């Protein structure tokens, strides 16, 4: 049995800028990890960061869907976990863009709750940041 995580975030930006932020390797390095990502279907990439006691620091994936600037999907494999990530971008008007994350294939409730907890607490932080 696998689990799915669905989450939404709103950013004050344009769909094009958000698309670049989630597909350009130099931009991804600033908010995810060092990588050799390319938005090309079938391309195999790696995200890497310094290993910790609990994680070798490597994420391996393959690009599945590139529908610029609306949808991007890739596999996301690290350790025993093999997930599929789908990012969906939607223009909300008034300079706001919704970023939806769907992450499928999560193997157990602990991983799902961990991710959900992180995103939810982050939602509050994001709101504070935008209100400044």
């Amino acid at each position, binding site marked *: 049995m696998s689990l799915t995580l669905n989450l939404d975030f709103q*950013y004050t930006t344009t769909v094009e800028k958000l698309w670049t*932020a989630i597909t350009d390797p130099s931009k991804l390095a600033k*908010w995810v990890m060092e990588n050799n990502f390319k938005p090309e279907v079938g391309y195999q990439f790696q995200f890497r960061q310094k290993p910790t*006691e609990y994680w070798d620091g490597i994420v391996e994936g393959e690009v599945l869907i590139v529908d610029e600037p609306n949808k991007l999907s890739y596999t996301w494999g690290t350790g025993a976990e093999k997930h599929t990530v789908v990012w969906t971008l939607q223009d909300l008007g008034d300079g706001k863009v919704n970023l939806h994350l769907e992450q499928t294939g999560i193997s157990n409730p*602990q*991983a799902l709750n961990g991710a959900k907890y*992180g995103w939810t607490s982050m939602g509050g932080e994001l709101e504070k940041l935008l209100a400044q």
Partner: protein
Amino acid sequence: MSDNHQLRDVFDAIADPTRRRLIQLLSEAEELPLHELTSQFEMGRTAVSKHLTILKEAGLIIDRKVGRETRFKLNAAPLQEIQDWVGFYSKFWSTNMLRLNQLLLEEEEE
């Protein structure tokens, strides 16, 4: 992964609802003998004993003989491994999404 010398993976040990209930019961008491634990379940003492053995192999419980009975006590330390592992997922996503927001804000200012 962490270097541990337990006979059994702590994630495996907590995968079963009976064993999670046993951990909970033991967390509420200093120590308990088998018959007091068994009375909480609709299963025989042999079945409860088997679950206790699995918890013991994962380092989650310690037992000692007092006269003719065996008493069980919780050792919560191995649960830290679960805490750390879940913490990784939580921290990973929260940190990244904040960074994405910061990146987009910086680009706006340029």
